[in-house]
């Protein structure tokens, strides 16, 4: 039986990430689109289920960032039941969350961004993968990354249950306290995490910043968009992953707005395009002006660089130093270069590790009073966290019995979708119109345009990842396929 069978776990779902490039009659790029597969029926699936099941349900949408969904959902239940968790419960949630952010960012830096910078943007295709990264940074560093990741995941499991299916968050608190006997494990792991994050910054400094070619790529116009930026900030407008208000700055870096999760519908609207399952969020007060950047376009960005741009600093000392170095090197705030997301991610690794250490060392962290029982009648709840890939908002409505009547998620990759579309379009235009790059070169350079965002389309479309292998389809003005490029 002749048929194509893809049984690699990464491509179990046969859908491909697709880039469709349409040319005009003169053969120049008229528009490039980035498309991803769809999953259907999340809202219908949620309706009628008990709201307290949502932290488990949403954390299983995909295996990439279960902790982000679990935490956003738990905070949404706090709001739904109008219950304020005890201080230690908030600290434990943030501690788990900091571990998760550290692990996720490390994975991205070494293994996802690595092919672009650690190996190099012009390296041969055969080396532009995880194995190439290991070859460049050395096996000892590779073992350290794998070992650190394993240790961090085990700590999450120790406190929060399974990494993939966490059972930690409850409305009004968490399921269990930290045992005093376990606290030293967390403190020691956090110290190693800080060392590791600072080591990663030194790797970035040595391999990337000391290489003028790399810095020129980072600052090139092809990978630059002057958009708005969004991120959670604390009371002093410093980056916060777990809680705070959502701050937006304009392309000049001035505060455009600041709002709570409850107010997100006043700030964000969603634009629909016929060629994509993703809805494109934009700033309501600016309006949708198409896939363009600038102060008159409501397109905004989330994720590491956006968080740094939207803040006034970091809440921990070493992260603040790294933050200042980034802006000093790249010409001040805001930085509009998409590839600087990789650098911002390293700054956030340091912050996550330092915050992990602060919380693990907190005298109150083993306090057994980890929950306030909810008593209010539920109605509407909204919650927000900063996922590794950007601002993540959950919104539930229930009947009086607490059964879901409406559920909406605005996920991180979705928030970045319009800017990702801009990036793919701009790279495709530059490469097809100017350099006539070969197939793999084109694929690489276009991939770099969106890889910096660390997009995860698993929940961007409420879908499992089916985006590899990526394919590029180039069509003439009549829509006829004239060239297909596959990895």
């Amino acid at each position, binding site marked *: *039986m002749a*048929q194509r069978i893809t049984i690699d776990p990464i*491509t*179990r779902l046969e859908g491909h990430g697709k880039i469709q490039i349409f040319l005009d009659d003169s053969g120049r790029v008229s528009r490039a689109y980035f498309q991803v597969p769809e999953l259907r029926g999340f809202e219908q699936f949620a309706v009628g289920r008990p709201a307290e099941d949502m932290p488990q349900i949403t954390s*299983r949408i*995909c*295996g990439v960032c279960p902790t982000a969904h679990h935490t956003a959902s738990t905070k949404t239940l706090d709001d739904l039941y109008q219950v304020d968790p005890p201080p230690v419960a908030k600290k434990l949630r943030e501690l788990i969350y900091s571990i998760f952010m550290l692990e996720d960012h490390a994975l991205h830096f070494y293994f996802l961004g690595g092919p672009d910078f650690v190996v190099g943007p012009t390296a041969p295709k055969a080396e532009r993968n995880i194995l190439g990264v290991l070859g460049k940074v050395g*096996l000892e560093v590779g073992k350290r990354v794998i070992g650190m990741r394993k240790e961090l995941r085990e700590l999450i499991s120790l406190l929060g249950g399974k990494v993939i299916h966490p059972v930690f968050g409850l409305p009004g608190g968490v399921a269990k306290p930290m045992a005093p006997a376990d606290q030293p494990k967390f403190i020691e792991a956090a110290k190693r995490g800080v060392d590791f994050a600072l080591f990663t910054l030194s790797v970035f400094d040595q391999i990337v910043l000391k290489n003028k070619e790399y810095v020129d790529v980072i600052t090139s116009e092809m990978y630059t968009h002057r958009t708005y930026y969004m991120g959670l900030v604390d009371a002093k407008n410093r980056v916060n992953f777990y809680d705070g208000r959502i701050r937006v700055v304009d392309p000049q870096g001035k505060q455009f707005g600041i709002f709570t999760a409850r107010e997100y519908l006043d700030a964000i609207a969603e634009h629909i395009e016929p060629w994509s399952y993703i809805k494109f969020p934009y700033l309501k007060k600016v309006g949708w002006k198409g896939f363009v950047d600038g102060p008159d376009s409501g397109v905004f960005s989330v994720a590491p660089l956006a968080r740094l741009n939207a803040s006034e600093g970091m809440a921990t000392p070493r992260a603040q130093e790294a933050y200042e170095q980034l802006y000093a090197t790249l010409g001040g705030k805001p930085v509009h270069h998409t590839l600087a997301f990789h650098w911002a991610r390293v700054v956030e690794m340091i912050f996550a590790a330092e915050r992990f250490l602060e919380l693990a060392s907190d005298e109150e962290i083993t306090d057994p009073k980890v929950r306030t029982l909810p008593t209010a009648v539920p109605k509407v709840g909204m919650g927000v966290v900063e996922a590794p890939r950007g601002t993540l908002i959950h919104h539930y409505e229930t009947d009086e019995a607490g059964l879901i009547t409406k559920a909406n998620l605005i996920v991180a990759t979705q928030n970045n979708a319009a800017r990702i579309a801009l990036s793919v379009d701009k790279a495709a235009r530059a490469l097809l119109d100017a350099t006539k790059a070969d197939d793999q070169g084109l694929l690489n350079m276009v991939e770099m345009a969106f890889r910096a965002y660390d997009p995860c389309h698993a929940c961007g479309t409420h879908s499992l990842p089916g985006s*590899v292998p990526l394919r590029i389809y180039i069509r003439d003005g009549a829509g006829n396929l004239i060239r297909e490029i596959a990895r």
Partner: protein
Amino acid sequence: MTPILVLGLGNDMLKDDAVGIRVAEQLMGSFPPEVEVRCTSSFGLALLDELIDREKVLVIDSYVPEEFVGSEIQECNLDAVGEAKTASPHFVGLGEIREIMRKLGLTFPHEVRILAIPVSDPTTFSYEMTPAVAALVNEAAARAARIVEAWLPPDVAPPFSRLRKNPASMSC
């Protein structure tokens, strides 16, 4: 750490994508102590944790055929999957994980078999599989049991004879 792992992959909230998990659930309790049956929704580099220090692994997963009708359960070894490389840790495959583990000096299983079950709809949120896919669970479990049986010493009773009749009581 048991030397043999049976690993069901999938997402039980996504209709037919649950099939690997359902087959693994049916196998739970059927094998001697040297065999562990696990389920996971993990993918990409996270699968590395599952494979470390195992000798033999059976992966039970789904695939989406061009035409579901007429498609059959497929069985192959890891070499048949190919070595396609991706730049994303979210999506790295078993072939790549094997290379990474070998390069890092980690023990990769001597043998990895893959049992792939055709599915019709793995993209709709539902706990219920398509009936035609659900009907393949028993056959897949039987084939999985035979693969594991061949890995066990000859003096161990065939695990297929101990397949549980009511797997609903044990879940991943």
